[in-house]
């Protein structure tokens, strides 16, 4: 087990694991930068030959195109490798996040909001991927590009280099200014847009009130107002979007004009800095137009990196959540006479609040007991302790003589069948509901479990029987509860835990459920919870 996980750690490991890929990527990035510099230099030579009325040398022409093509191929290779590399990293990150999720303590597990978790696993990890595919690496490439162009210009036209060194920071600041404002208005726009689109479902939901109070026209005006809000936010984005490129291109033209003018100067000192041949002039114009694009990209990359950092921070927060204790993997001895035992157990979900205070109880093998008591007395808490979700603060919780937290997953599957208060549907077929995707449970086992609960007929009447894909309205509430019992019974567990399973059922369904339980409980230790005296079976253990 790695002791300190973080996004950086995972990235480092991925780079190490895929050494060839990483090296190839590095080579492609550098190669693309270097080879992009050469074509204008060759072009300059070619043009200078032409001005001197020399025939163009075929080798030169081919070399020029060859270099253009090579640059293109290198860029293509860089992008491909980057895609693969980015995906490797997201895969590794998600794997490690899932690993962590499996180790979370039950408390943290309960605290995770499913929607938020999905956005952590999917959205935030994607921003980290962007950090590579359109952040750091392209930023490096762009910075190299700017530098190398500056060097190339230094060789051909020193004066221009100085002009550019002065100009580029200003340009960069302008770029950032525009991008920041654009981002702000985009966010404002998104908010306004979501308000406007939220208005539609709200209308559908409140349609009765709208009609009753004759507010159709009012609602229409309201909608128009929301759209207008998003419209004016968008207008701002449009302004910045429309103004940026023209400004850059005008600037581009001015720089070209200045260089041209100065190279035409009659002053020898100016000429020393700016003087150039026609070929060089073409190359310089080419370089100038090349240097403005990376500046713009640089600004976008900074933005990507910023949002990626926010995502990374959230992922690292997740990594720092509390973990459960790993099971000591002790083997339970089912010959031990006591199926479940609480020895002087004191427990509360946090330090300050004690729910169980020095509770002891014993449940023998094959016995049927009902834990009874008022709401909040700690009946469900005892279940959670028995299931090994929590560790007691004081005392011992034993299953077959072994602390419940020390049972491994494989053991748990054989020991516990847990019927929850409400059914948790998993995505998949009816069979999957019963097996929880456990391939060790055979089709015959599934069928037997269904028959035991009296659901077999209902299931066999479905279009694809056990392979019918489950939807929320496939079964009635009582039938779901029966399915829940089938799920608990399928792995042939030794202990059945029933958590207030008839609470939400009508009398007739309740009878069906209780009959099913009767059949399933044979030869098993059964522990149930009930608020109502009529549902009590076997020995009653009062919890107060």
């Amino acid at each position: 087990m790695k002791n300190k996980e973080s996004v950086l750690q995972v990235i480092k490991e991925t780079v190490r694991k895929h050494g060839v890929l990483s090296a190839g990527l590095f080579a492609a990035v550098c190669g693309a930068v270097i080879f992009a510099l050469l074509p204008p230099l060759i072009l300059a030579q070619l043009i200078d030959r032409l001005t001197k009325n020399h025939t163009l040398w075929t080798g030169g022409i081919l070399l020029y195109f060859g270099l253009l093509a090579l640059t293109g191929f290198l860029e293509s290779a860089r992008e491909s490798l980057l895609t693969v590399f980015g995906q490797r990293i997201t895969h590794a990150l998600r794997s490690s996040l899932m690993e962590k999720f499996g180790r979370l303590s039950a408390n943290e597990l309960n605290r995770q909001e499913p929607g938020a978790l999905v956005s952590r696993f999917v959205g935030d990890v994607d921003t980290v991927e962007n950090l590579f595919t359109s952040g750091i690496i392209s930023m490096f490439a762009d910075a190299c590009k700017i530098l190398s162009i500056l060097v190339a210009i230094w060789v051909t036209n020193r004066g221009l280099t100085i002009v550019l060194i002065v100009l580029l920071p200003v340009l960069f600041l302008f770029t950032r200014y525009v991008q920041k404002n654009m981002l702000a208005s985009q966010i404002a726009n998104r908010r306004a847009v979501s308000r406007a689109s939220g208005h539609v479902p709200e209308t559908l939901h409140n349609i009765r009130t709208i009609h009753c109070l004759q507010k159709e026209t009012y609602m229409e005006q309201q909608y128009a107002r929301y759209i207008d809000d998003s419209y004016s936010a968008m207008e701002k984005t449009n302004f910045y979007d429309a103004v940026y490129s023209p400004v850059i291109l005008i600037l581009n033209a001015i720089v070209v004009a200045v260089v041209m003018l100065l190279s035409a100067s009659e002053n020898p000192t100016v000429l020393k800095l700016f003087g150039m041949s026609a070929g060089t002039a073409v190359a310089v114009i080419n370089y100038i137009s090349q240097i403005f694009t990376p500046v713009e990209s640089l600004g976008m990359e900074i933005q990507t990196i910023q949002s990626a950092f926010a995502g990374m921070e959230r992922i690292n927060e997740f990594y720092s959540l509390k973990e459960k204790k790993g099971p000591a993997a002790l083997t339970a001895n089912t010959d031990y006479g006591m199926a479940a035992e609480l020895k002087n157990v004191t427990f509360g979900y946090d330090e300050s609040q004690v729910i169980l205070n020095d509770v002891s109880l014993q449940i023998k093998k094959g016995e049927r007991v009902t834990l009874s008591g008022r709401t909040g007395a700690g009946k469900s808490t005892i279940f959670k302790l028995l299931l090994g979700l929590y560790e007691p603060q004081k005392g011992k919780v034993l299953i077959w003589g072994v602390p419940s937290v020390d049972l491994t997953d494989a053991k748990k599957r054989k020991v516990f069948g847990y019927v929850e208060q409400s059914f948790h549907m998993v995505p998949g077929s009816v069979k999957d509901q019963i097996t929880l995707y456990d391939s060790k449970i055979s089709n015959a086992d599934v069928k037997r479990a269904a028959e035991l609960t009296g659901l077999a007929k209902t299931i066999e009447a479905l279009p694809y029987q056990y392979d019918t894909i489950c939807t929320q309205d496939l079964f009635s509430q009582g039938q779901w509860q029966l399915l829940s019992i089938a799920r608990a019974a399928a792995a042939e567990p030794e202990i059945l835990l029933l958590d207030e399973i008839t609470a939400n059922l009508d009398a007739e369904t309740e009878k069906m459920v209780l009959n099913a339980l009767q059949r399933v409980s044979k030869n098993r230790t059964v522990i149930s919870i009930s608020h109502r005296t009529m549902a009590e079976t076997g020995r009653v253990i009062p919890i107060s």
Partner: protein
Amino acid sequence: MKDETFRPNRVLSYFQEEWKILFFVTVSGLIYNLGLLAGPWFEGKMTGKLVDLLGGTGTFHQMLMLVTAYVVSIGIVQVSRYFKRFYVRRFANNVNRHMKQILYGTLVRKSRLELEAEGTGNVLTKAILDVDDCVEGMRKFTTEIFDTGVALLAYACMLLWYDWKLALLCMIFPPVSYVIAEKMKVIVQKTGAAYKVQSGALSAATLDRAANAITYRVFGCEEDRKAAYEKNLSAYENAAVRANIWNTAMPPIYRIISMASILFILYFGGRNVLHEGWTPWTIAVFTTFLSCYTKLATKSSSAAKLFNAVHKAQVSWKRIKPLLQNSEAEPELPAAAPAKLSVDHLHFAYPNGKEIIHDLSFEAAPGQIIGVTGPVACGKSTLGKTFLCESPYEGSITFGGKELGKMEKTDRNCIIGYLGHDPELFHGSVEDNIRLGGKQGAEEIIRIVCFEEETKAMEDGIHTLVGTSGVRLSGGQAQRLALARTLYHKRPVLVLDDPFSALDKKTEAQIFANVKELARDSIVILISHRLYLFDQMDQVIWMDEGHTKVGTHEELLAEVPSYAELCRDQTKGGSNDEK
């Protein structure tokens, strides 16, 4: 501003309506795209002038003139580019808003039943989302007509003018790259679709793992699930690489193919300069031709975008077209005058359902308050909804002698005020939620529903936003706000379904007294399962499994044992209920 000839289901109508903006776009678009030629032309001229200068035939002054003209023309071109971009987007915004409003107008006037049946509500909601795609396509079409169509044509003409043979030779390659891109599109779409499927599967798997975490842990399935998730991740990775690699790796390749023409330009162009080729060239023409071609090659790669945009827009347009119809705006009518309400042998059942109301008759005069109660699921809420005539009833309900079910919807809405279980609040302030555009102030009503103190304590008083569907309010607050809204829009018949269920007894009694005072000339039908106010009712309707009994509180106490029992239970256990 509505013009008579506007037909919402014709695309052309939208273009026509925005003709002023489009005219502006056309002018600036033409200037910009034709002006693009100025760049290469001037660059060539300047290089030529530099050669002259170095050869001693040009002057600094000539260069200055050239350079100034260059900057000015680029300036003009770029400023028109700004206008073009800005106004194309404004055009798109206007059309977007217009279409959405038309769709929304249709949606808000559909009846509840229509919206629920066949998912019409969903269809309209989706259509509103489709508008974005459709308008985006219209915008791109408008943009690309200039940026691709006009610009390509201009560049091509310029090349042809300088040397038509060489130009034709060069123009072989861009179409080649375009054809390859078009062929690749099939793969791109296929892998893209596969990627979408995998990314959906991954989200679903993550959600399942998160939502059923405890179940998996308790059943000892966590290791299994982790392995399954790993499989999801691998499938996702493969699909993502396959889908993205085509998008990222191919554009440089297309560029290389288009740039192959450079070979011809350098070779034949070079001969031209040396006066050995088809057309005698200067070095200036040579550089112009070269940079002009480079620009054409870049532009031609976006020709595909034009077709994609149009295609996408067509698909969404087809979906929304049948839904775009003008709807008539109707004015808000004032509440009807007070009159007598009489219900005579009323029967009600939902289509294909069992009878919920069986033979109910009663009469009510303005100022009366009628309580309706019964055990859980006895149909008291259905009785309330019957007055809305959403589904047909049997028997008769008349107001002022007129049959409710036979009235126009607008007339009925002037008579019946209804407040259901769901407060149906709107995003907006407390005040907005009550007035919904009404002119009168809301303060008085807020006092009546005992909501004054709490609103004062809110951060912006009555202007505090309540959030979507009122999420920021507690249940009791939402209930009182909804009641205030109903009372603000007072009608001669007010049907209130359990308006006090989330309130404590004292507040309930206070509000009840206020409502009684306010609704002196209205008939109030109060549906409730709490009975301690029922001794103040003028009549009580008891409902049980469709059967009804009407009488005064005392009569029912004497005649209906279950009613008496319910009353007794509540007054005895009442003290526990107090908050």
